[in-house]
Structure formats: C-alpha cells, structure tokens
C-alpha cells in the first residue's frame, strides 16, 4: 500500500480483517454504498457484499446491542457510530452487556466486538461533532479503549482490536483522518493493545497523550529541541489497559511530565496517568505534573474552537514551567 491517510489506513485494516476472517462484519449508518461519512468503509460493500457490510437504521443502542448478539454467536462485528456525539446511547449496551458477557457467563459466551467512532474537534464540524468522550468508557471494566494517532498506528491498532476476543472501543480523531500521509504496509501486522508507543526519546521531559494532540506534542518536541531540550514523546494509544510502565520508565528518566489530551481536564483520562505518577512514580518527579487539556467547558462551535483546543503553545508553556523546577 502506498502512502495512506489515517482514514485510508482504517479502511485498509477493515478490508484486511474481513479478508482474513469471514466472521468479521461491518455495520453502521451509511457504511454501505456511501462508504461511511468519512469513507472509512469505502469499497467494503462492493468487495465483501451485503451479507458482511450493512447499513443500519438510525439506532445506536441497537447497533451496539445487536453487535453483542452477533458476537455471542461467534461473529466479530465492527460497528461504526457515525460520530462520538451519538455513541453515548451505546454506553448502556457496552457497560451492562458487552463488557461483562464473558464474566457473567464465566466464559460461556463472549463479546469480540469493536465499536469504532470518530472523535474530537478541529475540523469545524457542526454541534455535537467535536467532543472527546473517552472518559465515559475508561472506567468500564471489561472494555478496552484505543485511540490511534497516525495512519500506521491506526492500521495496526485496528487490526489488533478486531482480532481481540473482547470488546474494544476504538476512537478515531477526526482531525487526523486526512491530516498526513505516511507509508503503511498493508501486511496484516497488528500492534499490541497493551503498550504505549514511544515516538521520540529525549530524556529531559516527557510529553504523553493520545489522539488529536499527538501531532501537537511532536511539534512541541521539535520546538523544544530547537531550544536545546529533548523530549520523550509517548502516544498512549491504548488507554485501557494502560501501559503505565512505559510512562513511568520515561518519567523516571526525565522527572517531568506534561500530559496532553483534548477532552476536558476534570475527570479526564489524563488524571489516571497523573495518578500513576503520584503513586508509583512519585519519587521520580522533579516538577509538578502538568496537564494540557481541553477546558472544562462545552467544546465551542467552530468560531471559538481554536481557543478550546490544547495546542503547541500551551504544551510548550507547560513543558517550560516544568523545566523551571529542580
């Protein structure tokens, strides 16, 4: 496969998974002929036919709930929710059923499903199309929560999510869908679902985050390098189960950590990383842990959007505050 955008990589991973395992199904609103409103499922209907790719009525709870039934029967449904703003209607099914089917039947039934949905702001989308709601899912035991931040990672993580035997919520940052291209080898290689991914090693300060802010973190790292500061940059990628080791190991070296995410600060999943640092990581810390996040406000409509999004400048400021210590 030549250079691909994130959405093309997602598409390739879906096709690959469907190709290699006929239990894999794709369902959701407009995933068929239309190929998904972002074209993530483009071409799948033509290639795999209407018994494996189907448009659903507008009914998110049922999309998730039917996926539970399909999964219990041995299929591997990959359900698309058109935007994260409409995924909340599926939480009940994920929490009360998908995440616990294996536990409550002591393994008699299981639920190998993936719920994919675009998330996040930055594309001047309409109301309700810009939220980052991962924290609604990260405290649900039995669920994995994954957020890719590049075409290659999107490909590898999605393949892993589909092959996994348990339910995965897979959140795709809308603003990264077409942001960059990179070479993606469509060779069926997946990435592990329990590891953070270190994108850059520096040793002076740790920048850790996921999703839409990852390119901002990398840009900030460039800027810092120009100032003579070398940053470790970690893409959390899989929020749950959390690979705290990689983050702790980095901070053990740097003593400084800036946690970045687009979701609001309070109760955001960044707090979990900070908590690991305040616990097992405490004695590594030379400076207060910084969090650079969306405000504790509703994501504004497009005109004010850029004032909401945590970007390079705020990350830099936090890193510099951190570096002033010790």
């Amino acid at each position: 496969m030549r250079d691909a955008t994130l959405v093309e990589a997602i598409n390739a991973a879906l096709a690959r998974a469907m190709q290699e395992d006929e239990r894999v199904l794709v369902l959701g609103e407009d995933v068929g002929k239309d190929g998904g409103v972002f074209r993530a499922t483009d071409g799948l209907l033509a290639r795999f036919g209407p018994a494996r790719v189907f448009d659903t009525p507008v009914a998110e709870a049922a999309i998730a709930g039917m996926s539970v039934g399909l999964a219990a029967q041995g299929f591997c449904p990959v359900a698309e929710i058109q935007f994260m703003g409409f995924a909340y209607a599926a939480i009940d099914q994920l929490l009360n059923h998908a995440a616990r089917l294996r536990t409550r039947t002591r393994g008699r039934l299981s639920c190998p499903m993936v719920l994919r949905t675009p998330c996040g702001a930055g594309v001047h989308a309409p109301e309700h199309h810009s939220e980052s709601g991962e924290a609604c899912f990260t405290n649900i035991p039995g669920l994995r929560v994954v957020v890719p931040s590049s075409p290659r990672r999107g490909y590898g993580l999605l393949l892993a999510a589909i092959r996994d035997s348990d339910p995965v919520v897979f959140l795709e940052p809308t603003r990264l869908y077409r942001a960059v291209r990179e070479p993606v080898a469509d060779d069926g290689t997946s990435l592990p679902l329990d590891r953070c991914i270190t994108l850059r090693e520096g040793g002076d300060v740790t920048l850790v985050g996921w999703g839409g802010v990852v390119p901002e973190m990398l840009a900030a790292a460039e800027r810092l390098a120009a100032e003579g500061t070398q940053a470790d940059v970690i893409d959390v990628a899989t929020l749950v189960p959390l690979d705290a080791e990689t983050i702790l190991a980095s901070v053990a070296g740097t003593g400084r950590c800036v946690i970045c995410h687009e979701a609001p600060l309070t109760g955001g999943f960044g707090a979990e990383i900070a908590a690991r640092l305040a616990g097992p990581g405490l004695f590594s810390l030379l400076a207060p842990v910084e969090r650079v996040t969306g405000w504790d406000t509703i994501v504004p409509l497009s005109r004010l959007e850029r004032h909401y999004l945590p970007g390079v400048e705020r990350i830099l400021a936090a890193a510099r505050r951190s570096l002033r210590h010790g």
Partner: protein
Amino acid sequence: MSTSRVAEFDVVLTRYLDIDGAPLGPLPAFAADAADLVPLYRALIRTRTFDAKAVALQRTGRLGTFASSLGQEAVGVGAASAMAADDVLVPSFRDQAAQLWRGVTPVELLLYWGGDERGSDFAGPRGDFPISVPVASHVPHAAGVALALKLRNEARAVLCIIGDGATSKGDFYEALNIAGAWQLPLVVLVNNNQWAISVRREAQSAAQTLAQKAIAAGVPGEQVDGNDVITVHDTVANAIARARAGEGTSLIEALTYRLSDHTTADDARRYRGDAEVSLHWHGEPVARLRQYLVGQGAWSRDDEEHALADAADEMERATEAYLAMAPQPVSAMFDHLFATLPVSLRSERDEAMGGEAGHA
C-alpha cells in the same frame, strides 16, 4: 381534498381453553391427545414448585432477591416447549419457566439468584443468553443473534421474552424495527402480567393492546391468553415456524397476571388491593390445564400427588446441592474478565487474593 386509506391493521386475540379449562372448540393438532399435554402440565408444576422454593430460601436468608413467575408459568412453558433445542432463548429475569424447560437446572438457577455467576454458565442450552436484568436491553441481543442465524442461513429462530413494562423502552422498539426491516428470525413474546412493579399496564401506554406495537415495526402482532398453555404453545410454534422459514419477525402479547409480589424485595400491597389479586386466581394457568386434563381423563388426583411430590423432591435435592456448592475462588473476579488477563491487572488480582499491594 383526496383522502385514501393507505394501510389497515387489526389485532386478534386467541384462546383455546376457557377460564375454567373447557375447550372453546377443537384444539390444535399437538394437543389432540390430552396425554400429550401432560409434560406441559408437569412443567407448570415444576416451575411453580421451584418458585415457591426460591421464595422460601430468600425469606430464610439463603437466596438473594428473586422474581417469582407465579401465575405466569404458562407463558414460559408454552413458549419454550414450542422451540427446538437449537433455537436460542434470550430471557428476562422472570423467565425461569422457559429456562427450566430448556434445560437450565434448578441448581444453576439457584446459584445465579444466590449470587454466583456460575449459575449463568449453564451446562444445558449453551447458546441461550443469561437472563437480562436491565429491562428490554436484551431485545437487541436477540435481534443480533437472529441476524447471525440468518447470515449463516440456518433454519433456526430466536425467542426473546420481555414484560409489559419493557414495551416502553427504546431498546425494544429499535430492535423490533430493525428485525422487521431485515426480516430476522425473531419472536418477541411479551409477558403482559399487567404490572411493571407498581405501575399498571394502562399507565405504561395508551395503546389498547401491546400486540399493536408490532404495527410500528411492520411485523405481525397478536394477543393470546397467556394463562392457556395450549394457546401460547401453538401461537409461538407458528411464529417460530415462520421465522425458521425465512418469513421474519413476530410479536406476541400473552395476557396473564402477576399473582406474586414483583420480587421478594417488593410489597405489592402498597399499590394494589388483595381483591384484584384474588380475582385473578380464577383462571390461573396450572388449575386451568389441570381442569382440562382431569376432564379428559388424562390426569388423576393420584397423578397430581405424585407430580407434586416429584417436583418437591427435585427442588429439595437442588437446594441441597446449591447449598453444598463450594464457593468460587476470589480470583474468579479476574479470571473471566478477558480472554487473557492484561498484564496490568495481574498485581490487582494478586492483591485481591490476599497479597499486600504496592500503591496503585
């Protein structure tokens, strides 16, 4: 102005036995020989005996909250007996009648209601869903299972049982609508026992019947006398046959009455009078079928005594087995969470099992 009638519908109510067990006409073929109904009758008794035992165990602190099916036994027995073994049951929390018929054991049911997950790991109908406590949220599962069967071109059907209250929940409509649109092999059976805890059926919906909710999904809907096990069996059997034949989804409303409290945690006298309940003892399903069988010479006082004793005996033995069951290990909390426990959870499991933790 031009007006045209673009669609017409009706809802039909069927019963075979009247309230005193007298046939209202010829019975369906499966019931032609009264002796063939004896297994259904035994199942009604078995369910009632199980319920009484479970309530007694709860009252004496040896079981958790329990939902009796008193008065509604014919719904589950009639429906489950109309299923093939390879059909799939997706039950609610009050569906022990159907579960017992399908081969879930009394010990498994007691384990579940006694707070042990192993009770949902039935040895019998391994493809059946565990009960759904959240009202109506299992109808989408049933539709998903039905879709799976259809995708595999299997001539099998899914039976999902819900309550009257469940017909107010969005999940029910969403799933029924999709099942209708996709002609899924699904039968949704409403146990209309007239109450959703303290809320009367009439307060749940202005719909004159719950069967007519099928019209919204464009699928057949009908009412049956849910206290007449013959009618329930026959109607469900027809709906399942249609489903297996690729003719899609059906909704059946079974009219019955909840003679017990909602659960052992409920006190129904707070919201309904004894007089109303007493009235409904006339026509309850066990007496109704017995009257018919006795009238046909297919059942005697002696048979009755033996059947009751057998059921009591079975439940006594089940209770003993249940109470003797060794507890699950503490690690069970972790053992079934994922196919493989993530590394990050190992230390939690160790701590839960008694080791001291580091800071989280």
